[in-house]
């Protein structure tokens, strides 16, 4: 896991009551997502009502962190000063639910080795002073 000693450039998210579970679950090593307590549907991005059963009884749960790469791009453009390139941007699907997608970076893997369908698992990049733990993904095997 990346240590705070060599944290790469990141624009960090503004933490709110609605999103804190996602950006701060990594403090405890957990990928946490919102889930309907009535019907079990996961919501990401988080919301205020379950779009499947319209319950407002939403909780937060740790998920497995296991996922599959649905698609990705390899970015060579240095969009911001200090940004290390190339890097992989990906949409991954969590194993828990068919439409549970996260846009993320795939790391600890040469960009040319990333492939659609590849199994990946979560890891966290700590920004401890800012109280943000960025969920990232790496090859699962």
């Amino acid at each position, binding site marked *: 896991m990346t240590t705070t000693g060599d944290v790469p450039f990141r*624009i960090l*998210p503004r933490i709110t009551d609605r999103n804190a579970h996602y950006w701060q679950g990594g403090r405890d090593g957990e990928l946490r997502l919102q889930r309907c307590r009535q019907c079990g549907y996961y919501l990401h991005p988080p919301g205020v009502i379950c779009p499947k059963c319209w319950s407002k009884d939403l909780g937060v749960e740790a998920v497995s962190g296991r996922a599959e790469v649905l*698609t990705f791009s390899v970015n060579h453009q240095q969009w*911001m*000063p200090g940004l290390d390139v190339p890097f992989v*941007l990906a949409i991954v699907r969590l194993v828990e639910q068919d439409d549970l997608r996260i846009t993320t970076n795939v790391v600890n893997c040469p960009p040319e080795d990333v492939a659609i369908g590849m199994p990946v698992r979560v890891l966290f990049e700590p920004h401890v002073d800012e109280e943000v733990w960025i969920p990232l993904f790496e090859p699962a095997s």
Partner: protein
Amino acid sequence: MDTDLVGERRAVISGVGQSDIGRRLYRDPLELTVDACLAAIADAGLTTDDVDGIATYPGAMDTPPGFSGAGVPEVHEALRLNLNWYMGGLELPGQLGSVINAILAVSAGLARHVLCFRTVYEGSAQGTKGRSAVMPGGGGRGGGYRAGGFMEWLLPYSAPSAATWIAMIGARHFHEYGTTRAQLAQIALNARKNAALNPKAIYTDPMSMDDYFAARMISWPLCLFDCDVPCDGGTAMIVSRADTAPDLRKPPLAVEAVGTALHGRPGWADYPDLTTMACHDAGAQLWSRTDLKPTDVQLAEMYDGFSFITMCWLEAMRFCGQGESGPFVEGGERIARDGLLPLNTHGGQLSAGRLHGFGFLHEACVQLWGEAGERQVPGEPEVGVACAGGGPLGGTILLTRSR
């Protein structure tokens, strides 16, 4: 079809106008806007006294720099209009969503002549500092900036540009359908070839397939030539009520049908089929509102903020099947100016400049009026389509020279 429910047919496009266009003009963007607006009003044979509506995308915005050259109140004030209806905003089915709103406003009888405009000065705004100068968080490390809104889910992953998001949809299309970069290149090569005949185009030097493959990668599978070129310029058009035709300078273009649909979720990563976008739904809706068929269309002006978006629009508008845009554009003959479906005849945003959606509608109108000069599509085309927007944003307008 119950044509009473196709209200957009009560609207026409009566005039278009454009300011000077340049890579970097360093001129007041309101001046560019006014130049385009007055040109459009004159083209329609109207005066500012006749204009009683305004529609613009995205409305006044300070950031990103250069993205919006003017909002509704500035133009209202500059031209001293008396307005019966107006709107400026960006939560719309793409950039042309604002024009579609104008079409609906005149169809509903709220206004007679709506001035639609869009001005950009992204070329001047980024100056010589490159694209990062106008990107969110472009200041780099420090400053305490934190991402919010929908960018909260993208900026922390260093994805500030739609290039990065669209590239992922392209990659999935490549994966599922075997689409290749050499096929995608045809969108860029075709645009450059057409731009050579457009006196206002930004890039007019010939581009070869070798040039394309030699370009630096931006966000694989998109290289530099798959990305449009930021520029300065204003574009305007007048949407009029069809029954005002006798007051107009020339026969107006009829609005045959529009498409505005977005089925499924609005996130850039959340469209159910990751090989297409909102354009899929907008296209389907448009064809449900007309008896015309894709084979009736004689020219297509389709958004190319990134070349892959044009491929999606070709499929969405059913000029080919889902996943077949690669073979459709291969070799480039079919989409050439003298081909079966002339595409982006002004050079698109890739070569003529990122006028952000409005340039496509402007070009469709100019071509249908037979006023495109050297780049005029042969055969006096009567049916043309303009499409704009990518990702969850998409709007399309089908125009005819006669009804």
